[in-house]
Structure formats: structure tokens, C-alpha cells
């Protein structure tokens, strides 16, 4: 502690440089905290404990559809209380950058399956009665300024129409809210009728198939048993199934992009490499400027080890202050990300992310601090004081 004034003096010697270096460390570790939380969320083991809604999709690929004929067979599995189905559509509105999730759903059963989507009765009836009807979440409607009665054109990116065009037009008949503010992320999607979609799609795109089934089970404690029973029904068939929780299904969906862990590791590798160069350069510059001061410390009796310790403490302080601030920033921001995904992406900072972050802080501090520390150790007092 008695060396603290020396440490503070070293850090405050060039306030702007220290601040900028610390901010770059903060930014890197904030990014690390968020990305590692995503990685952990995607790499968490799958679990069916306490789940009352399950998703049945193709065992082989999320983009492989399942026959509509599975509906009655899944329904007949003991423990299945309700069922619905949906299809990812992947349409874009006006411009590809206007991306939002849009699904073809079996209107009646879908709304019954997801009571968290709150739709006024009149709009619900309009959705059930209008073949070209679509409903959107409040947030999405506000984003594009849509109101009931609008015609919403979507450009298909996967499913062309029978006539070969990609233009699908829907009538906006309802705007739903959510029952829980934590699910606001669900308000950023659009649902339209599966029968309209199925009849309209190009015959080459397998009409009569669905993207996935969602089933409600009678008792969450039966989740594993029911999931196993469903999958056994279709074992060794052309379209084998994989039944999993909604969260695991969402993760599988996102994993289509690629190996999330590898992507995150790649990004973080680049970020930390840049950080290493930047912070290393700042530290080296700082030590170069202070060679006469370090020589004075050695002159009055500070040992080589003490000087090495001071330089390492300086890099440690930079990394610890900036790194912990960055991790704390990520920790405080992630609940908002979680809310945006309506809780489907459980991105919270786990203890393992903190542990990994602290290890990285330690290692980077060492990597950044050691070369200038050794340089400081090698300073010849006589040469440094003579200005050589």
C-alpha cells in the first residue's frame, strides 16, 4: 500500500493517455463479457427440466421440414395436451436491412399455445377469418408505422409463390402486445396464416410440410418422457424428429449461422490481440518516457525487483480497472439483451465468464507489463542519469 502514491503518480502522469488506454480496455472487456455470455448461452447443456412447452423439429436440420401428417401422431402421444405448428418464412420488408422474424402459423392453435401474445378478441377473430391476415407485435407496428387495415408486402427470401414471384402481400388485421414486459422481444415479429402460405407457395417447396411443431404437455416433470416418446414414434423414418425445449430450439436456430463458440472466440481473439498491441505500446511509451525517473528510484535504493513490481502493478492497475469496468458494463447491459430476445436467449454473465475474464485480465496485464518491466530492470543508472 505504501507504494500506492507511486502507482497513482505513474498512472496520472499522462492523464489522457491513461484514460484512453483504460477506455480501450473497458470496451474490449465489455465486448468480451457480452460475447462470452452469448457463447455460454449457446454452449449450455440442453435440458428439459421444468418445461411445459416442447418443440418438435427435424432431427437432422432445422431447415428440414416435417410432414403435416405428424400432427395427429404427435397429438396421440400420452402427455401431449395441445399442439400447433409454424414455419419460418424469412421475408423482408422493402429492404433487407428491415429484418424481423416472420412466421406462418396455424392461427387458432398458435394463439392458444402462446397466451403471452395478447390480442384483442375482435382482432383475433379477424385473424381467424382473414385468409391473408397477419398480426404483428406492438413494437414492430410502431417501428414501421403500421396500423390495422394496412397491406404489408414481404419479399420472400426462401419461398417463392406458385407464379414464381417472391412478392407476398398480407392484410394487417391485428396488433398484439405481451402479457409480461420481459417478453417485449416477442413484439418484434409478424405472424400470418399457414394455410395461406401453404397454398400459395411454389409446389417445389414441399407444400404440406411444417417447420416445427410446438406441443404443450400435461406436466413439466414428464418433459423428458414425452420428448422421448415423440421422437421414438418417428425413429428410422425419412423425417426423424428431435424434441427439445424452446430455448434449445432457439439456440439450434441461431447456430445455423455457424459455430457460435468459434465465431465468438475468433472475434475475441482479434479484439484482445489489438488490445495487447495498443496497451503494450502505451505501456512501453510510458516506461520509455520515465526512464530517468525509474533510474532515480533505483539510485535511492529501489531494487530491480521493486522496479519490476511497480511497472507490473501499473499495467495490472490499467487492466484491472478497465477490465472490471468493462465486465461490469456487460453485466449491467445483458438483461436488456435478454429482454429483447424475450428471454429466449438466456444471456447473463455466468461465474465462468467472470473467471475467464479475470484470468484474461491477469494474463494480458502480464503480457503487456513484462517487456517494459524487464526494460526497467535493465536500466543502467549511470547511463540513464547521464541521458544516454
Amino acid at each position: 500500500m505504501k507504494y500506492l502514491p507511486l502507482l497513482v503518480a505513474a498512472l496520472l502522469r499522462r492523464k489522457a493517455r491513461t484514460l484512453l488506454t483504460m477506455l480501450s480496455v473497458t470496451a474490449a472487456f465489455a465486448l468480451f463479457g457480452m460475447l462470452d455470455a452469448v457463447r455460454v448461452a449457446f454452449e449450455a447443456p440442453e435440458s428439459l427440466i421444468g418445461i411445459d412447452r416442447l418443440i418438435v423439429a427435424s432431427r437432422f436440420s432445422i431447415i428440414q421440414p416435417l410432414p403435416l401428417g405428424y400432427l395427429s401422431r404427435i397429438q396421440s402421444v400420452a402427455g401431449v395436451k395441445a399442439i400447433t405448428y409454424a414455419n419460418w418464412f424469412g421475408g423482408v420488408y422493402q429492404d433487407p436491412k428491415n429484418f424481423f422474424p416472420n412466421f406462418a402459423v396455424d392461427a387458432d392453435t398458435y394463439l392458444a399455445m402462446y397466451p403471452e401474445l395478447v390480442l384483442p378478441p375482435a382482432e383475433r377473430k379477424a385473424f381467424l377469418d382473414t385468409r391473408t391476415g397477419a398480426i404483428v407485435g406492438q413494437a414492430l407496428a410502431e417501428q414501421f408505422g403500421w396500423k390495422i387495415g394496412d397491406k404489408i408486402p414481404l419479399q420472400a427470401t426462401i419461398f417463392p409463390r406458385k407464379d414464381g414471384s417472391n412478392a407476398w402481400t398480407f392484410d394487417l388485421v391485428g396488433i398484439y402486445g405481451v402479457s409480461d414486459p420481459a417478453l417485449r422481444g416477442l413484439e418484434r415479429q409478424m405472424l400470418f396464416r399457414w394455410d395461406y402460405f401453404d397454398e400459395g407457395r411454389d409446389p417445389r417447396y414441399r407444400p404440406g410440410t411444417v417447420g416445427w411443431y410446438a406441443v404443450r404437455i400435461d406436466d413439466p416433470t414428464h418433459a423428458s418422457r414425452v420428448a422421448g416418446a415423440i421422437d421414438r414414434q418417428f425413429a428410422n423414418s425419412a423425417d426423424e424428429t428431435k424434441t427439445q425445449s424452446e430455448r434449445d430450439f432457439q439456440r439450434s436456430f441461431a447456430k445455423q449461422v455457424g459455430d457460435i463458440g468459434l465465431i465468438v472466440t475468433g472475434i475475441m481473439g482479434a479484439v484482445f490481440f489489438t488490445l495487447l498491441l495498443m496497451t503494450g505500446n502505451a505501456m512501453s511509451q510510458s516506461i520509455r518516457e520515465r526512464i530517468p525517473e525509474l533510474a532515480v528510484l533505483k539510485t535511492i535504493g529501489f531494487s530491480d525487483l521493486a522496479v519490476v513490481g511497480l511497472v507490473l502493478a501499473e499495467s495490472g492497475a490499467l487492466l484491472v480497472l478497465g477490465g472490471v469496468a468493462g465486465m461490469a458494463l456487460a453485466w449491467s447491459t445483458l438483461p436488456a439483451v435478454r429482454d429483447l430476445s424475450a428471454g429466449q436467449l438466456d444471456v447473463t454473465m455466468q461465474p465462468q465468464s467472470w473467471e475467464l475474464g479475470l484470468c484474461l485480465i491477469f494474463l494480458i496485464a502480464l503480457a503487456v507489463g513484462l517487456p517494459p518491466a524487464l526494460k526497467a530492470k535493465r536500466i543502467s543508472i549511470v547511463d540513464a542519469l547521464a541521458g544516454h
Partner: protein
Amino acid sequence: MGIAERPLPLVEIRELSKVYQRGREAVEVLHHVDLAIPDGDFLALMGPSGSGKSTLLNLIAGLDSPTDGSLRVAGRRIDRMSSGELARWRAAHVGFVFQFYNLLPALSAQKNVELPLLLTHLPAARRRRNALIALELVGILDRASHKPAQLSGGQQQRVAIARAIVSDPTLLVCDEPTGDLDRHSAEEVLTLLQRLNRDYGKTMIMVTHDPKAAEFARRTLHLDKGTLVEQVA
């Protein structure tokens, strides 16, 4: 006083040589120097540039090691010490005053003076008190909280002297302590050094180019081409 009763000199140098390697060339900066400096002396070392006076000062202060010969300070052979032992020895026995003060710019005068005390086991309150006493001794207590940039050259050198004496060292080495000061400030600093020698018995070795500065010392030695050439009483 008989020879047997004569006290040992504080600094005892025998056949001291220093050779620097400049590329392939070996340059002998000090050539078999013999010197004895008694306790309480105030010695001025003079000589032209390159004569070896700063090298001799650095060797006596334990900042550098001789190539040959022996160097004993307060009875200890410092020429045989490792760099770690020398660092500990310097902390306990030597105070330094440099031409350009060499204060740490981000620390206040008081914190600068406290620096040598960080190497002791003194508690913070005691360190602070000793630093303030040293500042008072050099007549600059009212500037204790000022940073070096807020002080004049003469004031900075006083802070440097306070730093040099705060741990009550055996020996005070001063390398051109007035080289960067105007005449008035230089005289103040030299008077202060003289007072520390006379009133407090501090042994001092001062390298200087300035004959007027050397007049403040008890005696002056001249070095030329690495050899002591003249001794003026």
C-alpha cells in the same frame, strides 16, 4: 594524535580503476586512484569534462562497480557487493543530489521527499513527519504540497536535498548541484549544503565545474584524465 589512534576514513579508495568498453575500444576513465575521505568532510571534485570525476562519484555512491581496486565506505567493501546489496546499501547510506533535481513530476514535494523512506519500515505518519522535518530544514516547508513544476529551480533543488537527507545517510553525493541554477539560487543551495556539513556533520562529496562552488567545500581535489593531480587545502 598518533597513527594508531587516527580514526579510519569514511571512504577509503585504493588503486581504483574503471574501464569502459566503447565498442571494441577499452577506455580507462579512472587510473589507479587512491583517496581517503574522512567522516565529516566536504570534498569538491573538479576537473575538465571526461576527467573521470562523475565516474569516481558514481563508484563511491555505489551506482557503478570498479574494474579494479578496492573501495571501502564506512568499513564495508562496496566494490564486492552485488547489485541487490548495493541497492540496499545505497538506501541506507547514501543521499543523492543531481544537477537537474530529478524529482518525480507527479508527486508533491513532500511525497518526493518521502520516497527513500518507502524503503524503510516506518509507518506512514512517521514518514510524513520526517519528510516535513527535512523540508523545514532546507527552508521550504511552505511548499510541501507543491508539485515540482510549481517550484523554481532553486526550490526544486532544496526539495532534492531534503530527499537526500531525509533518511539520515552516512554520505551525501552531489553531482553538479548548482549546474542548472542562477548565481543567487546556487549560493543559497551551496550555503545550505555547507550548513548541513558544518552543523549536522554530513560527509559530502560534490562534483562541480564551478570554482566558486568549490569554495564552499572544505577541500578540493582535481582530476585529469582519470588521475588525481592536485589537492588544495
